[in-house]
């Protein structure tokens, strides 16, 4: 055809080189456009999907397992050429500084040897000023993370020293210089009546006083050093005093039970004395002039020995290792007004006796080793055993964890090992996020969200339960208002309303969907909340007055003579009812004060609190329910209205023709057919209510409580993200949990919307087949 036409019209040649070139250019353009649009379009779609994958990428590290890898190992007694003091024995104490570059070991000679943790290379020495002829037998740290240490000597004296580091930047390179100072006195403290070596030692440094508890030859002594700081010179003068401790039964210098461990808590309230195989005596030392035995208990079952005991970070919890390879966490719990030690949870390392327990310095985690050199890594709050690995061939002599919890140094059988710990997010476990957790100082397990606090040894409480509960609570109260109103309005608009009026009413209600939620939130918080607080009775009276007003008007209207009734066309009832609603609403509000006086002695809030015991917050779930319900009405209305309106007409005509009333037709035919659409409208509305941020943020007090009370507030997942995200440290567990909350919201709304969309799709198909 093409060829023929060419032959018949000799004037035009479509195959000139210029036209050919032009044609190929056009096809090239077409192909380019195809590629461009396809790659651009796919790119955009990928970018959108990236949201999901990025959220997942930020969340996944939460579920990584911990790992320990060996970085270096070298002989513990390695002596370098120019090192002044030769190391002969195994270290009796180990420590690592913040950057994990410099480690310190303490030796019997009183030598503090600083060395490179990576290579074991000697860096510096510091000799503790110990009296001639004596040796160091025991070194203890004040509390996890503290720099203050105490060394017990063979002559029964104790020396206190502060071991810190100074960081300088010569030539833009970090240089770490160890520093040892003596905050009290260079002279060792003599402990009353002690001449034999110090066997057990505990110190606790407070604002006003320093406590030292020590045992020697099973004799228990506590010394208190009162500090008095001079305001001007900031120099501290100290005064030492002995404390008369109560007698612990079964303890005596000759035979009897051994004192196995001493601990003083940082608040300087409790002295824990472990004696014999498993007997713990708790002495209250809050009044150092009158200490008394608070409680004596056995930490393990008969036949099982306690083999290690230490504080968890913060000094509230005791970690107790036993001869069967278990580590138990104990802390004081208030019962009937009295504090008692409770076994909270336990962890298992193996079957061999626990030998050492080392708490982390910044988190509520710890490491434990057994006599065979097996090391376990645990996190208490999350009840997680993160890792168990044999790290040494035999018993570990000393073990220390770096302040950041990322390195471990241990000495075993003459060998020092330096290991890296990958353990970024031990705080997270299924039980920590969704279960009841027994937090320190709480009297029972509970769901708590409290992600941060000012102090260092804070236990993060990361239960998502209160937030999820708050989210559902807010959504529930919103739906309570929105669902009936929106669906009833949709039914009327789609089925009964005159078409002319429908064209006007529908856009007005739908316009509300575009109203910024920040405005609704602001009105809810600053206008509605005080209004409800003052007119609480009126608000509840509305529930009664408005429907009653509508029904009374309707009854009266239907009783009017037809001539009057027919002046208003059918399907315009809504217009007639606007003044009725306004009037009955105004009546309810104006009667609020009188009703309050009549029913509740003039103050319903006080009545609620005193008579029913229901606390009342100004910004509460009722306010959120009203405001957010308002925000959700247009969403539900719009979709439900579409679903009802598109029910094929012949179904209704058929029903009406068979003699059903319009109401019967609606209930039995129309709603039944449209019910999937209405359901999907509700789901989408629910999705919107769940993810709404600003209204909840502004209209509630944002307290993460778990209480369904309509007069109390809540904190939702979305509001929590808005509140806490800006302050969250990038990459921290808290940061990732907020991402997890975002992912949960994303998935929830996405799944709900997709399901709703599928329901609607099937409904549309059904209608078209009808």
């Amino acid at each position, binding site marked *: 055809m093409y060829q023929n036409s060419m032959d018949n019209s000799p004037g035009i040649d479509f195959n000139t080189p210029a036209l050919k070139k032009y044609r190929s250019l056009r096809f090239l353009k077409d192909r380019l456009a195809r590629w461009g649009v396809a790659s651009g379009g796919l790119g955009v779609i990928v970018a959108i999907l990236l949201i999901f994958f990025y959220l997942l990428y930020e969340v996944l590290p939460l579920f990584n397992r911990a790992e320990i890898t060996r970085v270096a190992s070298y002989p513990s007694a390695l002596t370098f050429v120019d090192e002044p003091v030769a190391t002969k024995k195994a270290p009796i104490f180990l420590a690592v500084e913040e950057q994990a570059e410099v480690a310190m070991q303490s030796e019997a000679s009183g030598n503090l040897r600083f060395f490179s943790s990576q290579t074991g290379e000697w860096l510096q020495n510091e000799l503790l000023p110990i009296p001639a002829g004596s040796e160091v037998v025991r070194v203890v740290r004040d509390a996890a993370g503290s720099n203050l240490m105490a060394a017990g000597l063979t002559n029964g004296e104790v020396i206190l020293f502060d071991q810190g580091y100074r960081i300088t930047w010569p030539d833009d390179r970090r240089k770490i210089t160890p520093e040892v100072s003596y905050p009290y006195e260079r002279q060792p403290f003599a402990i009353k009546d002690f001449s034999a070596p110090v066997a057990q030692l505990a110190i606790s440094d407070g604002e006003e006083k320093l406590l030292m508890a020590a045992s020697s030859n099973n004799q228990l002594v506590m010394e208190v050093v009162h500090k008095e700081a001079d305001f001007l010179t900031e120099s501290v003068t100290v005064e030492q005093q002995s404390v008369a401790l109560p007698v612990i039964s079964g303890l005596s210098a000759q035979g009897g039970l051994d004192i196995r461990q001493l601990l003083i808590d940082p608040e300087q309230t409790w002295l824990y004395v472990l004696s014999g195989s498993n007997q713990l005596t708790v002495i209250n030392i809050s009044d150092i002039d009158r200490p008394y035995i608070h409680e004596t208990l056995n930490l393990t079952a008969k036949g099982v020995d306690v083999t290690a005991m230490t504080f968890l970070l913060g000094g509230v919890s005791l970690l107790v290792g036993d001869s069967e390879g278990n580590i138990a966490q104990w802390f004081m719990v208030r019962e009937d007004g009295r504090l008692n030690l409770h076994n909270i949870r336990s962890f298992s390392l193996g079957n061999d006796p626990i030998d050492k327990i080392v708490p982390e310095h910044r988190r509520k985690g710890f490491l434990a080793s057994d006599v065979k050199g097996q090391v376990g890594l645990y996190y208490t709050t999350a009840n997680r055993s993160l890792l168990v690995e044999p790290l040494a061939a035999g018993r570990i002599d000393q073990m220390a964890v770096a302040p950041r919890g990322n390195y471990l140094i241990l000495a075993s059988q003459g060998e020092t090992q330096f290991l890296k710990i990958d353990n970024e997010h031990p705080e997270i476990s299924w039980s920590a996020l969704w279960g009841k957790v027994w937090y320190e100082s709480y009297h029972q397990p509970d769901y708590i969200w409290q992600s941060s606090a000012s102090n260092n040894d804070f236990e993060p409480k990361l239960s998502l339960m209160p937030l999820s509960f708050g989210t559902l609570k807010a959504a529930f109260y919103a739906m309570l208002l929105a669902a009936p109103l929106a669906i009833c309005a949709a039914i*009327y608009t789609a089925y009964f309303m005159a078409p002319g009026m429908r064209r006007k009413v529908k856009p007005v209600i739908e316009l509300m969907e*575009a109203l910024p939620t920040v405005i609704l939130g*602001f009105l809810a918080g600053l206008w509605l909340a005080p209004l409800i607080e003052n007119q609480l009775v009126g608000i509840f009276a509305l529930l009664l007055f408005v429907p009653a007003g509508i029904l009374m008007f309707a009854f009266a209207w239907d009783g009017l003579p037809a001539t009057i009734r027919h002046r208003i066309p059918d399907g315009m009832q809504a217009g007639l009812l606007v003044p009725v609603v306004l009037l009955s609403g105004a009546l309810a509000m104006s009667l609020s004060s009188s009703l309050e006086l009549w029913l509740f002695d003039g103050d319903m809030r006080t009545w609620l609190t005193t008579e029913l015991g229901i606390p009342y917050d100004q910004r509460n779930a009722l306010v959120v329910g009203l405001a957010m319900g308002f925000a959700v009405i247009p969403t539900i209305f719009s979709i439900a209205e579409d679903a009802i309106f598109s029910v094929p007409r012949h179904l209704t005509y058929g029903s009406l023709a068979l003699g059903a009333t*319009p109401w019967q037709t609606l209930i039995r035919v129309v709603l039944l057919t449209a019910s999937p659409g209405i359901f999907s409208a509700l789901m989408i509305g629910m*999705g919107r209510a769940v993810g709404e941020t600003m209204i909840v943020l502004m209209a509630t007090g944002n307290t993460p409580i778990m209480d369904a009370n309509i007069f109390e507030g809540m904190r939702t997942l979305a509001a929590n993200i808005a509140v806490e995200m800006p302050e969250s440290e990038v990459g921290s567990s808290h940061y990732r949990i907020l991402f997890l909350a975002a992912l949960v919201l994303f998935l929830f709304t996405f799944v709900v919307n997709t399901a709703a969309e599928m329901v609607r799709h099937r409904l549309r198909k059904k209608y078209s087949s009808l």
Partner: protein
Amino acid sequence: MTMNNSLQSPGKRSVGAWINSGAPWVWLNAGAVAISLVLVIGLLGLIAVRGLGHFWPGQIMVADYQPPGQAVRMVAGEITDSEEVPAARLESSGLEVVNGQELYTRDLLKQGNRDLSGADFVWIVDEWLSNRQYPEDIMVLERREWGNFYGFLESVQEDGITVASGESAWIVFNERLDRALTIYQAIYQIEKHDIGSINAAIEQLRLAERRLELSGDRDPVRQAEIQAERKQLNQEYQQLETQLGDLYRAFNRDSFVARTVAGQTLEQPISKVVRAYQPNTLSLTDKIGFYFDKVGEFILDDPREANTEGGVFPAIFGTVMMVILMSIMVTPFGVIAAVYLREYASQGWMTRAIRVAVNNLAGVPSIVYGVFGLGFFIYFAGAKIDNLFFAEALPSPTFGTPGLLWASITLALLTLPVVIVATEEGLSRIPRSVREGSLALGATKAETLWRVVLPMASPAMMTGLILAVARAAGEVAPLMLVGVVKLAPSLPLDGNYPYLHLDQKFMHLGFHIFDVGFQSPNVEAARPLVYATALLLVMVIAVLNLSAVAIRNRLREKYKSLED
């Protein structure tokens, strides 16, 4: 649909029959519509009344106030709100209630004078007011600090010497005030613009120097150039400083003495006053003039007093900038994606799934986009950009911190589904015959698309864009994470290189509402301003939405004729 009324013929009405007919249910459904309408219109009305009422100069009342058991005191101010409270509530707030009256009217009095009385708003009981007057000579001063002042003018002073008192004082005062305001303009110009641009230039120099240092370039010539430039700038700065000093001396020359109704007199510099008027003497035309003056101030001025007074211009500007940037990004990408999905992709289950997914992304909570923007754009992409291109500014981040660019991109992502869905709908409405006609005439697919399909779909794209803009203008939650601040020191667009500061944080109307309403120390004082801001935002969004609806309707009309 007609209602079946056969069962309720007048004469023999029974409630039972009426209920059986289903009529009450229909009426209740109608009631739901009525309630929804009342809510919607009532809400808009509330915002409009409160927002517009804020600028109207109210009458200032002076009255004696005597709660039972307390001494009489004079109060002055504007009654801004009043409500009915039961006596029990008054008692529980510590007031003595003597007589048997059970309900009281409580008024919220704006008494100003925060520097003297501690609070500019007090609740007073209407029944305990007596001897109300509206004196002509009471004046209202809007001040730069401490909120409004209500009182009587005693005298005007220049350098501590009284120049006018009594009747003439008000006229002299107004002259002096005009002078002070003129000087203030000059000071503002120097402080905000001249010194601002010098500071920006000095900062650029510092960065240039640091860049040289980082690249290891120790060329003494360049160093010297920078030093010379810096010296020059410092000199200019010194000049401006002296100029400013002179201006400030002139600015602070005059002062005035005023007396409050409580009888306190105090002297204040005129430079602290922004506006002065005697509301009880204003005629209706004066009031209208005053009203528009205040509206103008609200729209065009910077905020004062921790955002509780003054205008919202920076917030309007920030919102508009952000929305424009967002539109530039969202339109092409949204249209390309829609064209791909509708015109190029094979219409299998995969495309359908993508379509559903894109559709549903519109329902994902906006805060999730904020989290994504913060994590991906700011901490990930922003940090990379800083390391590559802005290393000289580190450790202070340039793009590795919330800012205008990231806020725009985040909102573009948020509104992308809106544009895609609207454009796709437009494309799907174009009849097949139109495309086929074009293809039959020998046009390639790209040509058909470019010359025929896209122009026909352009109203749909506009609709999508307008809806996107309306959504973006009202979103606050994600912006709180990716770039808004309560008070930005400068606008994101100014005369300093590089003119458009994409890395800067900005102010936003929606966030302004949140911040002023909820983080402000003086909520009562800020409330009217928040209503006005809310009204502004509602109006912008309503106009955008209504125009989108209008365009959509026109579009439908247009293709109806094509389909026939």
